[in-house]
């Protein structure tokens, strides 16, 4: 496949912010000048060595990068097939990949002289990362979070408040990530002069999908080098979970032109990809539409109304997906599959048991797919999976599923 500049998969988006037909800038006129400003500022920063030097310094000393590439030996043995490596982004400061991107955006906000930072969050990981970096730089931080997610990710709500952020529960819609994003956009359209909108995934209007991808690509760049060191070659398969798609595109992007590498994105299959739409698999079960500033695959009804979707994992509970994934899906460079709640929960337990790693429910979706395909692959087949978050935030959800009463101080499992 294409390694030359003119025929590469890595050149998108075009000047209109499109990846093929996906992406774009579908925002109200009030926001358009702000988005153009941001794009200009990002273009300047991108080629400014001092910007990247500061990022590198913070990635190293504040986040703890590079994150290890870890050979999961016990898991490999248990599954009895392909050799499994985990890219350990759950070891980052704040417990997920989200901070890679937040640092980039907050440094930009500082360059633009913006003092008020807003963010949307689902699982709360992006909110925590944003609150963290804002605390460090003395910026005001407001996080919009669906009321339903405020409940199921309570530990993260408390963390954000400890970090000095204001958490605003959003009760419109079903009270999940989609609704949080609507209210963040409404805030931005109201507070245009002093506010920077720090989007948490590789979606939204151009330049966000490209910018977030560039910041998250550190994952794939490191993984590629580390794999070279460990195995002297490229992995055969790379796998990541997809909410909006930022950890996935971060892992995938540096490998797009390596045609021997099979790329698999894993969406949340919820209760199963069926007509009831109790899932969040936009590529597997949706069709193209326009929401939150970009054209992409969406869960929608016959009238073009957006469906809420459903997933046990708050971080994947979003009816859309970043536009670059829609494009990679359409041209066939990446494959996208869906994993159900139950499969993800089984993978959660498998990971705890075999590797002593308590994973977030989001990457458990990727892990469940690894568990599906690894047994049938040869022992010299190398899989690299992005372990993009740790599970501290999810223990209440999992306890409930396993019938374990967390309020019982004696520690007895409920019947």
């Amino acid at each position: 496949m294409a390694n030359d500049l003119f025929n590469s998969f890595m050149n998108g988006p075009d000047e209109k912010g499109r990846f093929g037909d996906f992406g774009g800038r579908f925002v109200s006129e009030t926001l358009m000048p702000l988005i153009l400003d941001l794009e200009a500022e990002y273009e300047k920063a991108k080629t400014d060595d001092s910007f990247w030097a500061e990022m590198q310094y913070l990635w190293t000393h504040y986040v703890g990068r590079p994150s290890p590439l870890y050979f999961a030996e016990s898991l490999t043995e248990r599954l009895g097939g392909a050799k499994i490596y985990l890219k350990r982004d759950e070891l980052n400061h704040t417990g997920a990949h989200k901070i890679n991107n937040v640092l980039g955006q907050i440094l930009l906000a500082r360059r633009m002289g913006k003092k008020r930072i807003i963010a949307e969050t689902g699982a709360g990981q992006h909110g925590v990362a944003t609150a963290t970096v804002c605390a460090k730089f003395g910026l005001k931080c407001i996080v919009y979070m669906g009321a339903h997610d405020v409940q199921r990710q309570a530990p993260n709500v408390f963390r954000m408040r400890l970090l000095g952020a204001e958490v605003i529960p959003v009760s419109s819609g079903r009270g999940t990530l989609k609704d949080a994003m609507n209210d963040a956009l409404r805030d931005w359209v109201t507070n245009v002069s002093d506010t920077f909108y720090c989007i948490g995934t590789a979606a939204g209007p151009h330049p966000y999908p490209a910018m977030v991808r560039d910041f998250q690509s550190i994952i794939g760049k490191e993984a590629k080098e580390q794999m070279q060191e460990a195995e002297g070659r490229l992995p055969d398969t790379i796998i990541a979970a997809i909410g909006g798609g930022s950890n996935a595109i971060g892992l995938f992007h540096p490998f797009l032109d390596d045609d021997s590498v099979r790329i698999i994105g894993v969406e949340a299959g919820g209760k199963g990809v069926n007509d009831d739409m109790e899932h969040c698999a936009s590529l597997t079960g949706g069709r193209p539409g326009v929401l939150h500033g970009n054209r992409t695959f969406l869960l929608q009804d016959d009238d073009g109304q957006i469906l809420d979707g459903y997933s046990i994992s708050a971080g994947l509970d979003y009816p859309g997906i970043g536009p670059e994934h829609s494009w990679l899906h359409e041209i066939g460079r990446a494959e996208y599959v869906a994993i159900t709640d139950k499969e993800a929960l089984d993978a959660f337990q498998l990971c705890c048991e075999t590797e002593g790693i308590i994973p977030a429910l989001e990457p458990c979706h990727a892990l469940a797919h690894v568990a599906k395909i690894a047994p049938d692959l040869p022992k010299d087949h190398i899989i690299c999976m992005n372990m993009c978050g740790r599970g501290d935030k999810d223990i209440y959800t999992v306890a409930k599923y396993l019938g374990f009463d967390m309020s019982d101080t004696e520690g007895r499992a409920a019947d």
Partner: protein
Amino acid sequence: MTRIDAKFAALAEKGQKAFVSYIMGGDPDMATSLEVMKGLPAAGVDIIELGVPFTDPMADGPTIQLAGQRALESGMTLQKTLDMAAEFRKDDDTTPIVLMGYYNPIYNRGVEKFLVDAKAAGVDGLIVVDLPPEEDDELCIPAQKAGLNFIRLATPTTDDKRLPKVLQNTSGFVYYVSVTGVTGATEAQAANVGPEVARIKAATDIPVIVGFGVNTPEKAEAIASVADGTVVGSAIVSKIAAGEPVSDVLAFVKTLADGAHRG
């Protein structure tokens, strides 16, 4: 000449400002909102903005968000909104209808099919909030070709450098959004709006109508006096939300229209 152009020509002859009203199609149900719609011209409304409900109205405040939810819950769709327009047209062939909403329901239907159907239903213009000039190829250009006005929003963030781009493919009228924010939030101030309208009028010959934050007859008069007309949305929708009888809603609309016409 569209019905919108004809309406402004007629108003100019009378030396009167335009009063534009917004209601959400299908709020709280199709029959009630059609009854309101049919009564608007007699209440003094010059141009009707008919909202197309959408699940994720990013530019709307709670009042219009809830109106959209009520409409969707009552089974409203883009098709039924077009049916409403067609039904209205049976008795009124002059009052312009502008559909206002978001792009996805239109994109989902297919732009070409939508334009044919909208035209057939007697729709005159479109306001699609999430289509800035940068996305003109999507709907704006095809709509103009199909003989529908594409009405663009200009905002306080639209600076002089950007204004020509915003005005370039606009037709019918320019909708000046008087405040940065969502619908129904802050109140417009005539003192701030006047110079902004003058700035836009210096760059175009088409009428400039001001909306967002206009909620009383006095405000409608003050804002209309510094522009070519004014739009009221959330204040009317609030009356419908409160379950007021259609006659009371229309009586309120009349006070607003009278205010605007004094302007």
